């Protein structure tokens, strides 16, 4: 028996090791949503970021240190406020409602530097130097003064991973700021697309798309990009749009994390009636 096993191992050890490793990898893949694995991942990328962030300044090629962080923060907030005001102008009948909206704007952002970009296949994730200690949680939108960069995917105490708009797992409901038609934003590995847009929607090249208020991920009207081309004007039930992203996530050095989780806010509102017993 032992000889048979030894013969088998001697002749097929490469295949056995391959099967073992593939099984192990697939098992780990299926365990990615397990809280323990998530904790381990948060801990490990936090540790890696902390130990290697020393190298980051050496590889920062743009002259970014001299930038005024406070002004950038203001800029990002103004962008959000501007988009919200645009939205209200579209639906408001008088200027008073716009004033009221401006006065009630209370969103907070956290300024953060990008430690590194992780390119994996056609996915791009960012690792930023703000985490749970700054009140950042998974699900918070990440913006730049130009528009949406992504969503916080996971946080450790001091660092967070951001799933950028160049990640096929990030899908958002977006809205044409012109006619209000809604579609789904997705990254197909090569281009940023908006799919499921009704054929009846009036879409012109150059139209600006913003995140929709019905989105459970980002319900602030944040700039996404401009229409580059309608891909299938003559066929299909829905229009597909090729979008020119407002934010070049390959080039940015700073981001702002908006300290709001729309899904939680919405859920609280939706489940209000449960509280009245």
């Amino acid at each position, binding site marked *: 028996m032992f000889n048979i096993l030894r013969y088998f191992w001697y002749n097929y050890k490469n295949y056995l*090791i391959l099967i073992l*490793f*593939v099984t192990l*990898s697939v098992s780990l893949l299926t365990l990615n949503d397990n809280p323990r694995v998530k904790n381990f991942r948060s801990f490990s990328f936090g540790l890696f970021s902390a130990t290697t962030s020393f190298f980051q300044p050496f590889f920062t090629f743009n002259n970014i240190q001299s930038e005024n962080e406070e002004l950038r923060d203001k800029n990002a907030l103004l962008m959000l406020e501007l988009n919200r005001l645009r939205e209200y102008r579209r639906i408001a009948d008088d200027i008073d409602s716009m004033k009221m909206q401006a006065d009630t704007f209370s969103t907070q952002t956290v300024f953060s530097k990008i430690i590194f970009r992780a390119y994996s296949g056609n996915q791009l*994730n960012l690792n930023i130097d703000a985490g749970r200690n700054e009140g950042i949680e998974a699900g918070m939108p990440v913006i730049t003064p130009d528009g949406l960069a992504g969503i916080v995917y996971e946080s450790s105490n001091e660092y967070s991973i951001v799933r950028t708009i160049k990640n096929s797992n990030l899908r958002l409901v977006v809205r044409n700021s012109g006619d209000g038609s809604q579609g789904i934003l997705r990254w197909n590995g090569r281009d940023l697309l908006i799919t499921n847009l009704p054929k009846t929607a009036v879409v012109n090249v150059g139209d600006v798309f913003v995140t929709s208020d019905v989105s459970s991920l980002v319900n602030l009207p944040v700039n996404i990009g401009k229409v580059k081309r309608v891909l299938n004007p003559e066929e299909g039930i829905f229009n597909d749009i090729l979008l020119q992203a407002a934010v070049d996530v390959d080039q940015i050095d700073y981001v702002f994390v908006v300290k709001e989780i729309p899904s939680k806010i919405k859920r609280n509102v939706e489940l209000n009636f449960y509280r009245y017993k």
Partner: protein
Amino acid sequence: MIVRSLIPILIFIPILLLQIYVVPVIEISGAVPDLILIVLIYFTLREGQLYAMILAMAYGFIYDISTGNLIGASMLSRVITAFIVGYFYNENKSETYLGNPIFPLIVLLGGFLNSAMYNLIVNFDINLNIAGIILFSALFPALYSAFVGAVGSMLFDTFGMRKSNG
């Protein structure tokens, strides 16, 4: 013997730092060369299939946990790539691959397999054009890796020859 087996780990640390901090600077349309894969293929051609699979497992795991990616995705794609590239291993030729045009070609094949598998694992979606994704997102980074592999291989070869001549 111990030093020899530690070399891949010692090389991996600076390569990982380069991959994470420097390589994004030279991205072209979102495609970046995979330095870790180039090193893995080098060790595969030098040490053989079994050694390469174990190394691929370790490299993939460390890469996944340090970048916050899906744990297991890099491991799986790199292990299968190492297994396939391992068939190019030839004990008598292992030292002649560097500086030889065959090295970038093997990197091209390995890069394509690795990226294609990785994208299939991470991006799998029935609505997406899988063939297009594989072709674009696997071929371009693989070509880029092959180019970097060719340059690296020539530099390494030249440096090695100078050393032996000097």
